[in-house]
């Protein structure tokens, strides 16, 4: 059977996740349990959601450098307004989604580089987050806490959530008409425009959807940590980009994979735990995490090259 290039791109991320998991189980057999798996992966849920948001932006050839501060902002809103006066909180979050749509429209109409616009926006979101929560605090809404600490039978909630996120976004991005149009804009926006579609509308909707998933990431994060802080998710910007790339996505050309992105986010989280199990001192952990990234990406490049050679024969 001939594998499609999309499936081939998923093999490396899936294999690296399995390999890392096997290594973790080998070093710490007690992780091979319900609680163990939940502990290993529960921080992956907000990262996976943020990675999906980033992937949506990347599918229209843009990049969101404000992801970290935006998730922090959403976390702060969740821990304050959404908890004390849900109506106002929901209104703020809807406003944030609208703001994302507007950013998409502005980037498209003015033909601005998304990196510059979102870098600017990252200061806006960061500033708003500090205004809402000048010092760490707030409380998670009960329902968010309940969802994130639920104990479904057999499979821990972190795994269930990851599979659910992957399935839902796979449907939206890879199967639905809207997903086709979105990836079409990434692949060749002129052709989409010539076919009579509104590229502005598609971009705005993509950004709004990304904003929605980033908000979910913020809520999930607060559900886990029970309180928020204006700087809680700063590293999500780079983690989300790394997750998309690790999962087989590409910066340009509309080649993205939601399942890959979730796997990428899980791999990144697991890499951190793996290094702790290896008793690598925290000073070296970030460097070692980078090394893992490089190895996986090198594997993918090698596979791409192999694929190309096969095609030319």
């Amino acid at each position: 059977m001939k594998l499609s290039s999309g499936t081939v791109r998923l093999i490396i991320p899936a294999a690296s996740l399995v390999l890392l998991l096997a290594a973790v189980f080998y070093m710490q057999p007690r992780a091979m349990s319900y609680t163990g798996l939940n502990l290993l992966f529960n921080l992956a849920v907000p990262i996976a959601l943020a990675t999906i948001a980033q992937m949506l932006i990347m599918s229209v050839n843009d990049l969101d450098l404000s992801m970290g501060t935006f998730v922090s902002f959403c976390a702060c809103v969740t821990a304050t307004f959404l908890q004390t006066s849900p109506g106002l909180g929901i209104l703020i979050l809807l406003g944030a989604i609208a703001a994302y749509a507007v950013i998409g429209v502005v980037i498209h109409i003015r033909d601005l580089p998304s990196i510059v616009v979102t870098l600017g926006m990252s200061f806006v979101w960061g500033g708003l987050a500090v205004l809402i929560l000048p010092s760490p605090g707030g409380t998670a809404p009960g329902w968010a806490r309940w969802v994130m600490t639920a104990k479904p039978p057999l499979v821990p909630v972190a795994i269930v959530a990851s599979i659910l996120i992957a399935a839902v976004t796979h449907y939206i991005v890879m199967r639905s008409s809207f997903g086709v149009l979105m990836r079409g804009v990434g692949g060749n926006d002129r052709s989409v425009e010539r076919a009579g579609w509104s590229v502005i509308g598609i971009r705005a909707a993509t950004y709004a959807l990304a904003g929605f998933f980033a908000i979910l990431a913020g809520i999930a994060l607060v559900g886990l940590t029970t309180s928020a802080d204006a700087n809680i998710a700063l590293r999500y910007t780079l983690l989300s980009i790394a997750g998309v790339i690790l999962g087989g996505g590409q910066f340009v050309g509309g080649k993205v994979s939601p399942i890959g992105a979730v796997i990428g986010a899980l791999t990144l989280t697991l890499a951190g735990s793996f290094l702790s199990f290896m008793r690598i001192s925290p000073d070296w952990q970030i460097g070692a995490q980078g090394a893992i990234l490089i190895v996986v990406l090198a594997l993918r490049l090698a596979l791409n090259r192999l694929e190309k050679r096969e095609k030319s024969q």
Partner: protein
Amino acid sequence: MTETLKREEVVAARGIKVTFGAVKALDGADLVIHAGECIGLVGHNGAGKSTIVNVINGGLSPHDGSLSYSGSEIHGISAARANGVRCVFQELSLCPNLTVGENARIMHAELKGWNWRGRALSLVETQLRDIFPGHSIDCDLSIDDLSIAERQMVEIAISFAGIDQRPKLVILDEPTSSLDAGLAAQLMAYIRKFVREGGSVLLISHILGEILSTSDRIVVMKDGRVVADRAASEFTTRSLVEAMGNVVREQEFSRAASVRTGEPVLSMPPRRGHGLAFQAWRGEMIGLAGLGGHGQTEALLDLYLDRNSNWWPTRRGEIAFVAGDRSLNGTFPLWSILKNLSIASLGQLSTKRMVDRAREETLGAGWKQRIEIRTPDMGNRILSLSGGNQQKVLFARALATTASTVLMDDPMRGVDIGTKQEVYEILRSEAANGRTFIWYSTEMDEIRLCDRVYVFRDGAIAAELVGEEITEKNVLAASFSEGDAA
């Protein structure tokens, strides 16, 4: 003629004027297309063909003149599409990351609701079988897994397909540029069938034989105006070329008897373990012929990488490359024309590793004049040029270097005949000065200009033709000789 007048007007564009800055792209052009006819549109690069196509498909609003679809005056892309106008563009315009079916979804907004994937697939597959019987395209693949010819076939099929209503007018802008002779013939036959059933086709092609044999009526454009509009039977190749403003130049077949001195400058063992070996001597012009996509481009790339390491650029470029697919690996779209031209010769234009602006501009001005790049200013963006003129710039880029060998990957795709003749002459004189040209071309006229021709079949060299042996008959015979037994 009276019968033609009675037919329904699908699109009527009258007195259209479009200006881009100082350039008058269209200067009062008229084009009326009736139902059930195929119109051939010919003209130089920059004559305004692409512009009038963009006006008809709604992508450009005319600055003056009237445009109506089936009698009603409305504008815009969606209005054009609602009136059944479809367009296959010169540069491939599918989304490379999507599958064939998903591309059909983008082109056909009606494909919505439950199981649109299944319906899109059957739509494209039926249409592909109709136009290109016996094709072997897997419609589940994404576009960038397909070859350039297959992409073109898919795009044509998607444009001809109709769900609720069949398209009324299909505009084909150089549809056969990447198709080989067999596929092109299938397409032409389908166009005739489509027209017989009442559809209309606007066919733009540089291959005059196609235009003459397929169209009912031929419209010749020149400098933004329509200069001739007559029935196809009233034209011959010669009169068509004359109408375009080209003087037919008698081809000179004065090939220099190739003097082989010393070692070949380039050589390559037989490819894929069979066929002939490749060798090139100094001052030769070598053609790579055969049907499209039979390994010519790969052979050129291998020759190039053989000399220029993938990892470490050689200090002195002894080999230059003219790309065929200019949007993929030719132009730097954000740069000016001059920068696009001089990029390959920056080494020789620099003093102390700094680019000498004055010398760069002299070089640009020289080439602008020599191959007539139609622009008021070499500082304009490369995308402000028409397709053919962009290709000329790429050509000048390679010729401006000091490279002794120039590899050309079908570089004349979409270049008008007048320019081609000028470039051929430049090539001849450069070859006489000792440069070697290795030239993959899909056009027989160009192959006939070469001193020696290697015919490719199934990725290997099947035959070598020298001097007077280079005829269309021999090339075709070598391309097909073993039939499907190979």
